[in-house]
């Protein structure tokens, strides 16, 4: 396809097709580095903390958590929404940006999709263990209640969540795997040992790069992108329904669905930046994940941050405009009540901080971007905390007003999910190509390809 010369370049330097394979497969084919071992060990320690925290709370019951009668869910649902939101950037990059033909998604989509899957796994931990008796978890499946006569309640957003999250996880997993198949075949055909040959052959499903298969493959990927786009919206929409269908002040507001989706993309891009700023350095992918990529992602962060900020202001304004005193109080309480610090952390991290990305210099400064991505993560965690806890802790009955503080068990579980997330991520980096090899080759500009340059030179010579 013809490309205007004004377009940014998404790969630096001249690369032959073989070299792209070499570069991207390098971390898989070489023994793990010290940095990898260090990161993996640290993550695994945190993962052990998760196992311990969960075992402890199942053994002793949910009394070990800080939740109480008024604030019936707090830390767990905050973290659930936090992780689900992070996952959304992966689908956004792989599906929505594919539909919009944004080529810069090519070198980041694979790791972002992996992030989606791991983040959804982390998210799943919280509602499952908040059930208390996890062994009864199958009760939320559409089975006769207790094997009696009543079925599950399809009017409940919590049940919609079960369907949404499990569909999202399954479809994301398959979409990710579909994208991986051609690249797994590349790794398979380069493999040296019997073990790796067997392993990658098993996963490559006999892919041989046939043009017929490629054509079908592209259609399937496009269909998957087409349905993943509304899927990703629906997932966070349904998560927002958990709150918005209720009549709790500060929760029941119609803007929640799109606002949650924007927030999810915002936080997800924050996490993608956190991971990629490091990964591109450690795995020497600077030629593929360029400063231009970081720049583009910073713009998305700024845009979605501003949309989220606009939603905060809308909510606040309509709460006043509605004339409903409970609504009005809920918002005043958020900004000036006992949790004011959480509210203002959220406001400054999500609305104000991303505005620094108006400056091009800052969008192209990896260390600064890394710092900002952490700020975004913190801000979005606090957003969920503010929405959930401040609306619940002062309900309609003044006598039941109370504060919520997390216990060490909850903190342990939350930090533990980071362990789960990063353990999976490190394993993935070692086993699978973290940049899409086939797609990178397909978008390689002709004037950066040695073969094409040679051919064009020959043709030019021939014409004279």
């Amino acid at each position, binding site marked *: *396809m*013809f*490309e*205007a*010369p*004004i*377009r940014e370049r998404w790969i630096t330097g001249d690369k032959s097709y073989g070299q792209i394979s070499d570069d991207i497969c390098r971390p898989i084919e070489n023994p793990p580095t010290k940095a990898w071992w260090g990161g993996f060990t640290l993550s695994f320690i945190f993962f052990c903390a998760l196992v311990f925290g969960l075992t402890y709370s199942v053994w002793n019951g949910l009394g070990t958590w800080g939740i109480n009668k008024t604030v019936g869910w707090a830390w767990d649902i905050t973290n659930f929404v936090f992780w689900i939101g992070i996952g959304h950037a992966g689908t956004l990059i792989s599906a929505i940006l594919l*539909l*919009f*033909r*944004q080529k810069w998604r090519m070198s980041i989509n694979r790791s972002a999709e992996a992030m989606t899957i791991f983040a959804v796994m982390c998210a799943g931990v919280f509602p499952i263990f908040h059930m208390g008796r996890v062994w009864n978890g199958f009760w939320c499946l559409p089975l006769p209640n207790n094997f009696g006569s009543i079925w599950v309640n399809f009017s409940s957003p919590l049940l919609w969540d079960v369907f949404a999250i499990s569909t999202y996880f399954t479809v994301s997993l398959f979409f990710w795997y579909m994208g991986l198949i051609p690249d797994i075949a590349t790794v398979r055909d380069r493999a040296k040992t019997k073990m790796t040959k067997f392993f990658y052959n098993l996963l490559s499903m006999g892919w041989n790069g046939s043009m017929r298969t490629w*054509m079908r493959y*592209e*259609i399937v990927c*496009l*269909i998957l992108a*087409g349905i993943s*786009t*509304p899927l990703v*919206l629906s997932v966070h*929409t349904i998560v927002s*329904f958990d709150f*918005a*269908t*209720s*009549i709790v002040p500060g929760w*029941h*507001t*119609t*803007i*929640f*669905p*799109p606002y949650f989706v924007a927030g999810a993309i915002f936080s997800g891009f924050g996490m993608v930046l956190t991971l990629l700023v490091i990964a591109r350095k450690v795995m020497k992918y600077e030629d593929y994940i360029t400063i231009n990529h970081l720049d583009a992602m910073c713009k998305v962060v700024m845009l979605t941050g*501003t*949309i989220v900020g*606009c*939603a905060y202001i*809308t*909510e606040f304004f*309509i709460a006043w*405009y*509605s*004339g*409903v005193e409970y609504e009005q109080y809920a918002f005043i309480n958020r900004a000036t009540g006992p949790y004011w610090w959480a509210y203002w952390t959220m406001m400054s991290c999500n609305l104000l901080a991303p505005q620094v990305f108006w400056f091009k210099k800052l969008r192209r400064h990896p260390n600064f971007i890394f710092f900002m991505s952490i700020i975004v993560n913190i801000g979005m965690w606090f957003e969920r905390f503010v929405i959930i806890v401040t609306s619940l802790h002062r309900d309609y009955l003044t006598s039941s007003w109370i504060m919520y503080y997390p216990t060490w068990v909850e903190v342990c579980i939350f930090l533990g999910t980071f362990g789960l997330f990063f353990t999976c991520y490190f394993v993935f980096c070692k086993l699978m190509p973290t940049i899409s090899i086939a797609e990178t080759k397909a978008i390689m500009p*002709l004037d950066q390809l040695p073969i094409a340059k040679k051919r064009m030179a020959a043709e030019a010579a021939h014409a004279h």
Partner: protein
Amino acid sequence: MEHHHIEIKQERFEFAAKTKRKLFMLLGIGLLLVIIGAIGEESGMLTNRLWASVLLGAYYTFLLALGGAVFIGIAYLTNAGWNTGFKRVPEAMMQYMPIAGIILLIIFLTGHGNLYEWTENDAMEDPILEGKSTFLNTTFFIGSSVIFFLAYYFFIRRLRAFSLKEDLLEGNDKASAKIFHACRRISAGFIVVFGFTFPVIAWQWMMSLEPHWFSTIYSLYNFAIMWVCTATTIAMFCLWLKSKGYLNNMNENHFHDLGKFMFAFSIFWTYMWISQYLLIWYANIPEESEYFTSRGVGTAIHGGRFEFQFWLNLIVNFALPLLIFMSRSAKRNPRTMIVACAIILLGHWNDLYLMIMPGTVGQEAPVGFIEMGMTIVFFVPFIYTTLASLAKHNLIPVGHPYMEEFAHHEVAVA
């Protein structure tokens, strides 16, 4: 992977006298319809119907003019190349903005008493409305509207001026890149201003028609209508220009993308619709569900005057675009495209009707000659201005850095 040279020629649209005559005839038909509809109508009802339908027509065309500008702005910001060749169409659409502004201001100045219930609350009998009076008062209403119009017009003029400059720079890559980046900066400013002002417009012009009711998603819902209808109108103009032999570098690939655009944003509109409906229906708080019960749906009331139109909305704006645009060939065929475009535009007329009428005219509001005629009366000046400004300048942005890419554009799969 190889590409061949495609010639890009400048074109000049000629606004034929015949077309002008047809437009004037259409205007006459519109006026005639209004007059016929007015005969025999009881006077109180007549004033309400006239004002409400005036607001409908004016707001609809305003959305299209603003949408044209937003389309240009977003195209610049996202580095879109597929729409470069027909960018003069949305540009011409946004030229209607000053006229839309003046018309709407006149409506607000003269008709606010008939349209907006809260302006009658001088005696402060209604404590709820009194509580909102810092926002809902005529001074703020008119003042902010004037400021918004001026701000939009400022950006529109800048975008247009830079865009016309491009034509002179064909072949001069450096200079046109400079203009391109200037346009990106203007667009960024415009989109931010738009993002923060458009919600206010939706609240005060539309939501305050029923001043007791409120919904936070309302501004996004209005945006969705604007966005779908803008893409549809652009497609309509392009199809018409194409049938007259213009826009030679535009082909079925570009219409394919416009079709996808309309497909996607019809679903986006549905998303907004269902979010608002489902949440209000579910919680069933009287202050909120009143909006739906007055439209004939809800848990308690069925069979109101608007119930048919309410569900028709979903069929015309969601189901039909979904089914039509799903097929690849429909998007590439001018005939199906024009039918689908007409369906969407009429569908959103129905949508706007449902937003405006129950709060202004009331439960007896009909869909009569007045409403239809008045919409025609407002669309004719919009179409006329658009065509006139298309004719005033070159039709093809030959100096735009993405023009060549536009000419080579091809939708490979699906």
